[in-house]
């Protein structure tokens, strides 16, 4: 792998946003395709951050600054990715369910999904079931990701599952759930497709689901 891509990955892991931006431009100037810079530079760096986060080797601050650095790099790449016709690896809509305004965990999951090369539409907090469905339809999403922190709001996830199943999206999108009170047992009970206990595992599962669905 070229040195500059390794440098991009390494700078991203340290959260050095301005340097990531400059290195991405340098890689473009060297004639490296945008899709390669994305995959082997930026996303490779986020993969390392995600794995270390899962192993408790790095923590929320490191993930946040790495994600910010990645976004700076992607900003430089975006026009080239568009003109090269590079497709994203999948599309996910994400939000905290109705009645719940907690978004720290949801935001971490969003960053991790983006770090896997997925396009993520963040619907914010207090999101109604029909808003999840409408956004998934409008954006051609493969994934609907729901977060809840409260024991009082986790039943809203069932309403999202029901709303998806009552629409033409049934079977065409997968529903992922997570948040402190959620368990695998609960996900099974409400008919969600996937539960993950942390943000890094969620990103791995999301990518896997998208690959399965496009196969």
């Amino acid at each position, binding site marked *: 792998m070229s040195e500059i891509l390794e440098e991009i990955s390494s700078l991203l892991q340290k959260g050095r946003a301005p340097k990531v931006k400059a290195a991405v431009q340098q890689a473009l100037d060297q004639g490296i395709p945008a899709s390669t810079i994305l995959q082997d530079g930026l996303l490779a760096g986020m993969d390392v951050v995600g794995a270390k986060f899962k192993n408790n080797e790095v923590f929320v601050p490191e993930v946040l600054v790495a994600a910010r650095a990645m976004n700076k790099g992607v900003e430089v790449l975006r026009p080239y990715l568009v003109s090269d016709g590079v497709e994203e690896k999948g599309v996910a809509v994400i939000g905290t369910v109705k*009645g719940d305004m907690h978004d720290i965990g949801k935001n971490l999951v969003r960053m991790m999904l983006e770090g896997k090369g997925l396009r993520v539409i963040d619907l914010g907090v207090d999101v109604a079931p029909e808003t999840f469905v409408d956004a998934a339809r409008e954006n051609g999403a493969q994934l609907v990701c729901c977060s809840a922190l409260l024991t*009082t709001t986790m039943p809203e996830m069932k309403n999202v599952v029901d709303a998806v199943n009552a629409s033409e999206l049934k079977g065409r999108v997968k529903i992922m759930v997570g948040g402190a009170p959620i368990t695998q047992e609960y996900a099974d009970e409400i008919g969600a497709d996937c539960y993950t206990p942390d943000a890094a595992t969620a990103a791995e599962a999301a990518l896997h689901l998208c690959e399965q669905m496009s196969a």
Partner: protein
Amino acid sequence: MNSRERVIAAINHKEPDRIPIDFGATGQTGINVCALYRLRDYLGLPKKDVDVFEVIQMLGVVDEDLRQIMKSDVIGLNHPEDSMGVPDTGKKKKFIMPDGTPCLLNAGNEWDVDPDGSIYMYPQGDRSAPRSVKMLDHGYFFNIIDRAPEYDEDNLTPREDFKNFFSVMSDETAKYYENESKRLYDETEYAIIGNLAGAGFGDPGAIPAPFEKHPKGIRKFDDWVAAQLMYPEYVEEVFEMQTEYMLKNLQIYKDAVGDRIQIVWISGTDFGTQNGPFMSKDLFEELYKPYYRRVCDWVHNNTNWKTYIHTCGAITTLLDDIADMGVDIVNPVQLSAKGMDAQLLKDKWGDRLVFWGGGVDTQHTLPSGTPEEVAAQVTERLPVLSRGGGYVFNTIHNIVGDTKAENIWAAFHAVHEYNDRHFGRQG
């Protein structure tokens, strides 16, 4: 032993005559107004509007009749100003929760109910300032609204940004603490915890400052957390400023309350998440520990108080540092977080740290278990946590609004029964 003696024994790592109980003495060992209202009814106590002592979480004041039934050994010496920055002048205003629970707020508070049922409140009751907190329809508490404008990373001004966030305690407040501490000390036998706060360094729940009219600088959660790595000099300057105010306020507070309080509550910063610590051990040691140490050292050099912090989450990697920096008591002992095993905590840190909480899981068991499951969990944990003293019973964090009264009673009654069984019946 009376309640005060019992708690003093426990926090000095001596086995008291029975396991001490806290019910509602702090802002993280309390009970939401809705649950409190129903619990009073369940226990046959007279119905009454619930006084609110912490507005954002909507925690209710536990009255003496209920405190006695729950057999709490601790009482809180609370701020004369609520978390919206509104002083308690004795005049109250009725506030109805979305589920109908009637409450009383300090009269200076102002709020709106929007057409969708959401309730918004104004900082310091000032309608000319942007609304700072929001309770959703069907909600039980307020969520904090981010209001600070974007900051300029090339021109960071920490002292200017936080000049309205910190303040020196007024003479009036000091007088209130003096009188109220005398009343609690002379007229009750409870252990007294001074809910002073002030050393919650980098508390993500406080940084957005719902009580400030126009917060500015780095105030959003994500920005603040990232700033610890991106602009550590900014964070350090804020902490330095905070320490200066805290040390001044501690002196004023000490002059006011003397040794009538036994414990001082200094910080509610969460250092843990469900799965691990919020930050690396290195970052904690570099950025946080020195400031906490200065505060704790002051307390130990100048008073007989024990220092008390609240931090949720999986914090086993930080507990050596927490003990080292002079913290005596840790709450809420979130045994539902990764690696937080009661036996391990007692074995490794039980001789240095007092554990306050941990009695029953408030994420699953207490809100959704049966009363039998609740009682069984409490009964199983008590012998482990209370071994050798160093333990005060409470649920893990506040009792949330929709918790069933029978489950709350099951949790506390299980402690009463355990105490009766092991230490003999009490009066």
